[in-house]
Protein backbone atom coordinates (compact mmCIF):
# COMPACT_ATOMS: atom_id res chain seq x y z
CA UNK A 1 0.00 0.00 0.00
CA UNK A 2 1.73 3.20 -1.04
CA UNK A 3 1.76 6.12 1.36
CA UNK A 4 0.43 9.56 0.57
CA UNK A 5 1.40 10.59 -2.91
CA UNK A 6 2.47 14.13 -3.56
CA UNK A 7 1.79 15.65 -6.89
CA UNK A 8 3.39 18.75 -8.25
CA UNK A 9 1.26 20.58 -10.75
CA UNK A 10 3.11 22.17 -13.60
CA UNK A 11 1.55 25.14 -15.28
CA UNK A 12 0.11 24.02 -18.57
CA UNK A 13 1.95 25.88 -21.25
CA UNK A 14 0.10 26.24 -24.53
CA UNK A 15 3.17 25.78 -26.74
CA UNK A 16 4.16 22.62 -24.89
CA UNK A 17 0.94 20.91 -25.86
CA UNK A 18 1.20 21.84 -29.50
CA UNK A 19 4.88 20.92 -29.81
CA UNK A 20 4.45 17.43 -28.47
CA UNK A 21 4.57 14.68 -31.05
CA UNK A 22 1.14 13.07 -31.43
CA UNK A 23 2.16 9.64 -30.17
CA UNK A 24 3.43 10.96 -26.79
CA UNK A 25 0.24 12.93 -26.30
CA UNK A 26 -1.69 9.78 -26.92
CA UNK A 27 0.50 7.86 -24.49
CA UNK A 28 -0.12 10.36 -21.67
CA UNK A 29 -3.82 10.33 -22.34
CA UNK A 30 -4.04 6.55 -22.42
CA UNK A 31 -2.29 6.08 -19.05
CA UNK A 32 -4.70 4.57 -16.57
CA UNK A 33 -5.74 7.10 -13.94
CA UNK A 34 -6.58 4.71 -11.17
CA UNK A 35 -5.68 6.65 -8.05
CA UNK A 36 -6.12 10.41 -7.81
CA UNK A 37 -4.91 11.57 -4.36
CA UNK A 38 -6.51 14.72 -3.06
CA UNK A 39 -4.20 17.70 -2.72
CA UNK A 40 -3.17 18.30 0.86
CA UNK A 41 -3.42 21.90 1.94
CA UNK A 42 -2.24 23.40 5.19
CA UNK A 43 -5.01 23.64 7.76
CA UNK A 44 -3.41 26.64 9.42
CA UNK A 45 -5.44 29.83 9.40
CA UNK A 46 -3.13 32.48 8.02
CA UNK A 47 -3.17 35.89 9.60
CA UNK A 48 -0.86 38.84 9.87
CA UNK A 49 1.83 38.69 12.51
CA UNK A 50 0.65 41.08 15.16
CA UNK A 51 3.52 40.78 17.60
CA UNK A 52 5.25 43.94 16.53
CA UNK A 53 2.57 46.55 16.82
CA UNK A 54 -0.88 47.49 17.85
CA UNK A 55 -3.11 46.08 15.21
CA UNK A 56 -6.17 48.08 14.31
CA UNK A 57 -9.27 46.00 13.91
CA UNK A 58 -11.43 47.17 11.06
CA UNK A 59 -14.67 45.29 11.31
CA UNK A 60 -16.61 47.47 8.89
CA UNK A 61 -14.28 47.52 5.87
CA UNK A 62 -13.12 44.36 4.17
CA UNK A 63 -9.75 44.65 2.48
CA UNK A 64 -9.70 42.49 -0.63
CA UNK A 65 -6.89 39.99 -0.96
CA UNK A 66 -6.82 39.63 -4.74
CA UNK A 67 -7.64 41.47 -7.91
CA UNK A 68 -10.83 39.58 -8.70
CA UNK A 69 -12.33 40.63 -5.36
CA UNK A 70 -11.21 44.25 -5.61
CA UNK A 71 -12.37 44.85 -9.15
CA UNK A 72 -15.98 44.49 -8.04
CA UNK A 73 -15.82 47.65 -5.96
CA UNK A 74 -15.70 51.22 -7.23
CA UNK A 75 -13.40 52.50 -4.47
CA UNK A 76 -10.69 49.94 -5.15
CA UNK A 77 -10.97 50.40 -8.91
CA UNK A 78 -10.32 54.09 -8.39
CA UNK A 79 -7.33 53.37 -6.14
CA UNK A 80 -5.83 51.02 -8.75
CA UNK A 81 -6.40 53.57 -11.47
CA UNK A 82 -4.54 56.19 -9.43
CA UNK A 83 -1.61 53.86 -8.81
CA UNK A 84 -1.37 52.92 -12.49
CA UNK A 85 -1.50 56.58 -13.42
CA UNK A 86 1.33 57.34 -10.99
CA UNK A 87 3.41 54.49 -12.41
CA UNK A 88 2.81 55.66 -15.97
CA UNK A 89 3.59 59.29 -15.11
CA UNK A 90 6.80 58.11 -13.51
CA UNK A 91 7.56 56.07 -16.65
CA UNK A 92 8.29 52.99 -14.58
CA UNK A 93 8.25 50.59 -17.53
CA UNK A 94 8.45 50.30 -21.30
CA UNK A 95 6.03 47.97 -23.03
CA UNK A 96 8.03 45.56 -25.18
CA UNK A 97 7.38 42.18 -26.70
CA UNK A 98 8.82 39.45 -24.54
CA UNK A 99 12.20 37.98 -25.60
CA UNK A 100 11.97 34.25 -26.12
CA UNK A 101 14.52 33.25 -23.51
CA UNK A 102 13.01 35.36 -20.75
CA UNK A 103 10.27 34.24 -18.42
CA UNK A 104 8.66 37.40 -17.05
CA UNK A 105 8.03 37.66 -13.31
CA UNK A 106 4.49 38.21 -12.15
CA UNK A 107 2.95 41.07 -10.28
CA UNK A 108 0.24 41.45 -7.72
CA UNK A 109 -2.02 44.12 -6.33
CA UNK A 110 -1.81 44.76 -2.60
CA UNK A 111 -4.63 46.67 -0.97
CA UNK A 112 -4.74 48.53 2.29
CA UNK A 113 -6.68 51.19 4.07
CA UNK A 114 -5.06 54.32 5.41
CA UNK A 115 -6.49 55.73 8.59
CA UNK A 116 -5.96 59.12 10.07
CA UNK A 117 -4.59 59.37 13.60
CA UNK A 118 -8.15 59.65 14.99
CA UNK A 119 -9.18 56.39 13.32
CA UNK A 120 -11.27 57.86 10.48
CA UNK A 121 -10.84 56.44 6.98
CA UNK A 122 -8.35 58.51 5.05
CA UNK A 123 -8.07 56.74 1.71
CA UNK A 124 -8.11 53.44 -0.08
CA UNK A 125 -4.67 52.47 -1.24
CA UNK A 126 -3.68 50.00 -3.92
CA UNK A 127 -0.08 49.22 -4.67
CA UNK A 128 1.32 47.17 -7.51
CA UNK A 129 4.12 44.91 -6.34
CA UNK A 130 6.40 42.69 -8.39
CA UNK A 131 6.65 39.07 -7.31
CA UNK A 132 10.24 39.17 -6.11
CA UNK A 133 10.10 35.51 -5.11
CA UNK A 134 10.23 34.59 -8.79
CA UNK A 135 13.52 36.41 -9.32
CA UNK A 136 16.64 34.38 -9.93
CA UNK A 137 19.93 35.18 -8.24
CA UNK A 138 22.60 36.29 -10.70
CA UNK A 139 20.06 36.92 -13.45
CA UNK A 140 17.50 39.31 -12.02
CA UNK A 141 19.33 40.51 -8.94
CA UNK A 142 22.67 40.32 -7.20
CA UNK A 143 23.35 42.21 -3.98
CA UNK A 144 20.24 42.95 -1.89
CA UNK A 145 21.65 44.29 1.38
CA UNK A 146 20.49 47.80 2.17
CA UNK A 147 21.56 49.89 5.10
CA UNK A 148 19.04 50.83 7.74
CA UNK A 149 19.51 53.01 10.78
CA UNK A 150 20.18 51.58 14.21
CA UNK A 151 18.55 53.27 17.16
CA UNK A 152 22.02 54.10 18.51
CA UNK A 153 22.57 56.19 15.37
CA UNK A 154 19.35 58.09 16.02
CA UNK A 155 20.48 58.71 19.60
CA UNK A 156 23.92 59.85 18.46
CA UNK A 157 22.56 62.31 15.93
CA UNK A 158 20.07 63.79 18.37
CA UNK A 159 22.87 64.06 20.96
CA UNK A 160 25.20 65.86 18.56
CA UNK A 161 22.41 68.10 17.31
CA UNK A 162 21.45 69.04 20.85
CA UNK A 163 25.01 69.61 21.90
CA UNK A 164 25.83 71.89 18.98
CA UNK A 165 22.43 73.54 18.77
CA UNK A 166 21.47 72.33 15.30
CA UNK A 167 17.82 72.33 14.29
CA UNK A 168 16.32 68.96 13.41
CA UNK A 169 14.15 68.58 10.33
CA UNK A 170 12.05 65.72 9.12
CA UNK A 171 10.81 64.77 5.69
CA UNK A 172 8.91 62.00 4.01
CA UNK A 173 9.49 60.64 0.51
CA UNK A 174 6.41 59.36 -1.25
CA UNK A 175 6.75 56.16 -3.29
CA UNK A 176 10.40 56.10 -2.31
CA UNK A 177 11.21 52.72 -3.87
CA UNK A 178 9.96 53.77 -7.28
CA UNK A 179 12.95 56.10 -7.61
CA UNK A 180 15.67 53.46 -7.48
CA UNK A 181 17.72 52.73 -10.61
CA UNK A 182 17.79 49.17 -11.88
CA UNK A 183 21.05 47.72 -13.16
CA UNK A 184 19.46 44.48 -14.38
CA UNK A 185 16.92 44.00 -17.15
CA UNK A 186 13.75 42.82 -15.51
CA UNK A 187 10.68 41.80 -17.45
CA UNK A 188 7.36 41.77 -15.65
CA UNK A 189 4.01 40.47 -16.79
CA UNK A 190 1.60 43.41 -17.22
CA UNK A 191 -0.88 43.95 -14.38
CA UNK A 192 -4.25 42.31 -14.99
CA UNK A 193 -6.10 45.57 -15.48
CA UNK A 194 -3.78 47.00 -18.13
CA UNK A 195 -4.92 44.93 -21.10
CA UNK A 196 -8.36 43.46 -21.54
CA UNK A 197 -7.19 40.51 -23.66
CA UNK A 198 -4.09 38.41 -23.22
CA UNK A 199 -1.07 39.72 -25.13
CA UNK A 200 2.56 38.79 -25.48
CA UNK A 201 3.59 42.29 -24.45
CA UNK A 202 5.52 42.56 -21.19
CA UNK A 203 6.72 45.46 -19.07
CA UNK A 204 10.45 46.06 -19.08
CA UNK A 205 11.14 47.86 -15.83
CA UNK A 206 13.11 51.09 -15.95
CA UNK A 207 12.84 51.97 -12.27
CA UNK A 208 12.63 49.66 -9.32
CA UNK A 209 9.24 48.54 -8.15
CA UNK A 210 8.00 47.52 -4.72
CA UNK A 211 8.49 43.82 -4.18
CA UNK A 212 11.73 43.42 -6.13
CA UNK A 213 14.51 41.94 -4.07
CA UNK A 214 16.94 44.72 -4.89
CA UNK A 215 14.43 47.56 -4.41
CA UNK A 216 15.66 48.70 -0.94
CA UNK A 217 19.28 48.65 -2.10
CA UNK A 218 18.51 50.46 -5.37
CA UNK A 219 16.67 53.14 -3.43
CA UNK A 220 19.47 53.51 -0.91
CA UNK A 221 22.08 53.87 -3.68
CA UNK A 222 19.97 56.54 -5.32
CA UNK A 223 19.48 58.35 -2.03
CA UNK A 224 23.16 58.27 -1.20
CA UNK A 225 24.41 59.43 -4.61
CA UNK A 226 21.84 62.22 -4.75
CA UNK A 227 22.79 63.41 -1.28
CA UNK A 228 26.51 63.33 -1.98
CA UNK A 229 26.12 65.04 -5.36
CA UNK A 230 24.20 67.93 -3.83
CA UNK A 231 26.51 68.14 -0.81
CA UNK A 232 29.77 68.04 -2.73
CA UNK A 233 28.85 70.92 -5.00
CA UNK A 234 27.89 72.95 -1.94
CA UNK A 235 31.08 71.98 -0.14
CA UNK A 236 33.19 73.49 -2.92
CA UNK A 237 31.92 76.92 -2.13
CA UNK A 238 31.74 76.98 1.64
CA UNK A 239 34.00 76.07 4.54
CA UNK A 240 34.47 72.46 5.51
CA UNK A 241 32.50 72.55 8.77
CA UNK A 242 29.35 73.16 6.79
CA UNK A 243 30.03 70.00 4.84
CA UNK A 244 30.59 68.10 8.08
CA UNK A 245 27.21 69.23 9.33
CA UNK A 246 25.50 68.06 6.18
CA UNK A 247 27.13 64.71 5.93
CA UNK A 248 25.29 63.29 8.91
CA UNK A 249 22.40 61.81 7.09
CA UNK A 250 20.23 59.46 8.97
CA UNK A 251 18.24 57.02 7.02
CA UNK A 252 15.75 54.60 8.36
CA UNK A 253 13.07 52.44 6.95
CA UNK A 254 9.97 51.04 8.47
CA UNK A 255 8.45 47.82 7.35
CA UNK A 256 4.69 47.91 7.63
CA UNK A 257 3.11 44.83 6.09
CA UNK A 258 3.88 44.98 2.39
CA UNK A 259 3.90 48.73 2.22
CA UNK A 260 7.18 50.39 2.90
CA UNK A 261 7.12 53.88 4.16
CA UNK A 262 10.41 55.63 4.21
CA UNK A 263 11.40 58.52 6.26
CA UNK A 264 14.66 60.28 6.04
CA UNK A 265 15.88 62.61 8.68
CA UNK A 266 18.39 65.17 7.54
CA UNK A 267 20.28 67.65 9.59
CA UNK A 268 20.54 71.08 8.11
Amino acid at each position, binding site marked *: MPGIMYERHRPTLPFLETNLPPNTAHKIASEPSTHQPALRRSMRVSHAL*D*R*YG*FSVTLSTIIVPSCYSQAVQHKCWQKAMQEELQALQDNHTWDLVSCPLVVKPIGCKWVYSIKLRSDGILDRYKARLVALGNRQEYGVDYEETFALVAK*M*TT*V*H*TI*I*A*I*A*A*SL*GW*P*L*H*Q*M*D*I*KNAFLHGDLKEDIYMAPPPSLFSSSTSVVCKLKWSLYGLKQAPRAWFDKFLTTCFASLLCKANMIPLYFFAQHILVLF*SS*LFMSMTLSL*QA*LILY
Partner: protein
Amino acid sequence: MKDLGSLTYFLGLEVHSSSSGVFVHQHKYAQDLIALAGLQDSSSVDTPLEVNVKFRRDDEDLLPNPTLYQQLVDSLNYLTITRPYISFAVQQVSQFMQSPRHLHLVAVRRIIRYLLGSSSRGLFYPAGSFIRLVAFSDADWAGCLDTRRSITGWCMFLGDSLIS
Protein backbone atom coordinates in the same frame (compact mmCIF):
# COMPACT_ATOMS: atom_id res chain seq x y z
CA MET B 1 8.58 64.45 -1.26
CA LYS B 2 6.83 65.99 1.70
CA ASP B 3 8.51 68.27 4.21
CA LEU B 4 7.20 67.44 7.66
CA GLY B 5 8.74 70.52 9.25
CA SER B 6 10.86 70.38 12.36
CA LEU B 7 11.25 67.05 14.09
CA THR B 8 8.43 66.30 16.55
CA TYR B 9 7.34 62.69 16.07
CA PHE B 10 9.61 60.07 14.57
CA LEU B 11 9.10 56.28 14.73
CA GLY B 12 7.06 56.64 17.92
CA LEU B 13 9.60 58.96 19.57
CA GLU B 14 8.23 62.33 20.63
CA VAL B 15 10.87 65.02 20.39
CA HIS B 16 10.75 68.38 22.14
CA SER B 17 13.47 70.92 21.45
CA SER B 18 14.24 73.90 23.63
CA SER B 19 17.16 76.21 24.18
CA SER B 20 18.46 74.02 27.01
CA GLY B 21 18.46 70.83 24.96
CA VAL B 22 16.35 68.11 23.37
CA PHE B 23 13.93 65.91 25.29
CA VAL B 24 12.85 62.60 23.76
CA HIS B 25 10.12 60.40 25.21
CA GLN B 26 7.57 57.76 24.18
CA HIS B 27 4.57 58.83 26.21
CA LYS B 28 1.98 57.88 23.59
CA TYR B 29 3.62 54.52 22.94
CA ALA B 30 3.66 53.77 26.68
CA GLN B 31 0.00 54.74 26.99
CA ASP B 32 -0.92 52.46 24.08
CA LEU B 33 1.03 49.65 25.69
CA ILE B 34 -0.75 50.11 29.03
CA ALA B 35 -4.10 50.07 27.19
CA LEU B 36 -3.09 46.89 25.35
CA ALA B 37 -2.33 45.19 28.66
CA GLY B 38 -5.64 46.47 30.07
CA LEU B 39 -3.96 47.99 33.11
CA GLN B 40 -5.25 51.58 32.84
CA ASP B 41 -7.07 51.44 36.18
CA SER B 42 -4.45 49.57 38.18
CA SER B 43 -2.28 51.11 40.83
CA SER B 44 1.28 51.97 39.91
CA VAL B 45 4.36 50.51 41.58
CA ASP B 46 7.71 52.12 42.30
CA THR B 47 10.07 49.53 40.85
CA PRO B 48 9.92 47.50 37.65
CA LEU B 49 11.00 44.22 39.29
CA GLU B 50 10.60 42.60 42.68
CA VAL B 51 13.79 42.50 44.71
CA ASN B 52 15.88 39.30 44.64
CA VAL B 53 13.57 37.31 42.41
CA LYS B 54 15.14 34.98 39.87
CA PHE B 55 13.07 33.58 37.06
CA ARG B 56 13.40 30.10 35.67
CA ARG B 57 12.40 28.59 32.37
CA ASP B 58 9.95 26.08 33.86
CA ASP B 59 8.19 27.87 36.73
CA GLU B 60 4.48 27.10 36.95
CA ASP B 61 2.11 26.36 34.07
CA LEU B 62 2.37 27.45 30.45
CA LEU B 63 0.24 30.32 29.22
CA PRO B 64 -2.55 29.08 26.95
CA ASN B 65 -1.99 31.86 24.43
CA PRO B 66 1.56 33.28 24.29
CA THR B 67 0.77 35.95 21.67
CA LEU B 68 -0.18 38.68 24.13
CA TYR B 69 2.96 38.01 26.18
CA GLN B 70 5.16 38.23 23.09
CA GLN B 71 3.36 41.37 21.96
CA LEU B 72 3.85 43.05 25.33
CA VAL B 73 7.52 42.09 25.67
CA ASP B 74 8.36 43.22 22.14
CA SER B 75 6.65 46.54 22.82
CA LEU B 76 8.60 46.87 26.06
CA ASN B 77 11.78 46.21 24.11
CA TYR B 78 10.97 49.14 21.85
CA LEU B 79 10.26 51.25 24.90
CA THR B 80 13.81 50.75 26.18
CA ILE B 81 14.93 53.24 23.50
CA THR B 82 14.05 56.16 25.74
CA ARG B 83 14.01 54.23 29.03
CA PRO B 84 17.25 52.31 29.23
CA TYR B 85 16.78 51.77 32.97
CA ILE B 86 14.09 49.14 32.41
CA SER B 87 16.44 47.22 30.10
CA PHE B 88 17.36 44.69 32.76
CA ALA B 89 13.76 43.96 33.69
CA VAL B 90 12.82 43.58 30.02
CA GLN B 91 15.80 41.34 29.41
CA GLN B 92 14.66 39.10 32.28
CA VAL B 93 11.17 38.60 30.83
CA SER B 94 12.24 38.41 27.18
CA GLN B 95 14.18 35.21 27.93
CA PHE B 96 10.88 33.36 28.08
CA MET B 97 9.35 34.49 24.77
CA GLN B 98 9.40 30.94 23.46
CA SER B 99 7.29 29.37 26.19
CA PRO B 100 5.95 31.99 28.60
CA ARG B 101 4.43 30.87 31.90
CA HIS B 102 2.01 32.51 34.31
CA LEU B 103 4.76 33.74 36.62
CA HIS B 104 6.50 35.48 33.74
CA LEU B 105 3.31 37.29 32.75
CA VAL B 106 3.02 38.54 36.33
CA ALA B 107 6.50 40.06 35.96
CA VAL B 108 5.55 41.72 32.66
CA ARG B 109 2.42 43.19 34.22
CA ARG B 110 4.53 44.59 37.03
CA ILE B 111 6.84 46.36 34.56
CA ILE B 112 3.81 47.86 32.84
CA ARG B 113 2.36 48.97 36.19
CA TYR B 114 5.67 50.66 36.85
CA LEU B 115 5.33 52.50 33.51
CA LEU B 116 1.87 53.63 34.55
CA GLY B 117 3.35 55.94 37.14
CA SER B 118 6.16 57.22 34.94
CA SER B 119 4.92 57.16 31.35
CA SER B 120 6.19 60.62 30.42
CA ARG B 121 9.79 60.03 31.41
CA GLY B 122 12.41 59.99 28.70
CA LEU B 123 15.92 60.98 27.74
CA PHE B 124 17.28 64.49 27.88
CA TYR B 125 20.09 65.62 25.60
CA PRO B 126 21.57 68.79 27.10
CA ALA B 127 22.74 71.60 24.85
CA GLY B 128 26.37 72.62 24.82
CA SER B 129 27.79 69.44 26.35
CA PHE B 130 31.32 68.52 25.35
CA ILE B 131 31.40 65.67 22.77
CA ARG B 132 33.43 62.89 24.37
CA LEU B 133 32.62 59.20 24.27
CA VAL B 134 32.44 57.43 27.64
CA ALA B 135 31.32 53.83 28.12
CA PHE B 136 30.56 51.74 31.21
CA SER B 137 29.85 48.05 31.47
CA ASP B 138 29.31 45.40 34.11
CA ALA B 139 28.62 41.68 34.18
CA ASP B 140 27.49 39.23 36.82
CA TRP B 141 28.82 35.72 37.24
CA ALA B 142 26.61 32.84 36.04
CA GLY B 143 23.51 34.91 36.71
CA CYS B 144 21.11 32.92 34.59
CA LEU B 145 19.80 29.95 36.58
CA ASP B 146 18.96 27.87 33.51
CA THR B 147 22.14 28.14 31.49
CA ARG B 148 24.62 29.50 34.06
CA ARG B 149 25.64 32.19 31.67
CA SER B 150 26.48 35.74 32.65
CA ILE B 151 24.40 38.81 32.02
CA THR B 152 26.17 41.91 30.71
CA GLY B 153 24.95 45.45 30.86
CA TRP B 154 26.43 48.58 29.36
CA CYS B 155 25.78 52.23 28.69
CA MET B 156 27.55 54.71 26.48
CA PHE B 157 27.53 58.45 26.78
CA LEU B 158 28.41 61.09 24.22
CA GLY B 159 29.21 64.01 26.46
CA ASP B 160 26.31 64.07 28.92
CA SER B 161 23.86 62.32 26.59
CA LEU B 162 23.13 58.62 26.70
CA ILE B 163 23.33 57.03 23.27
CA SER B 164 23.35 53.27 23.84
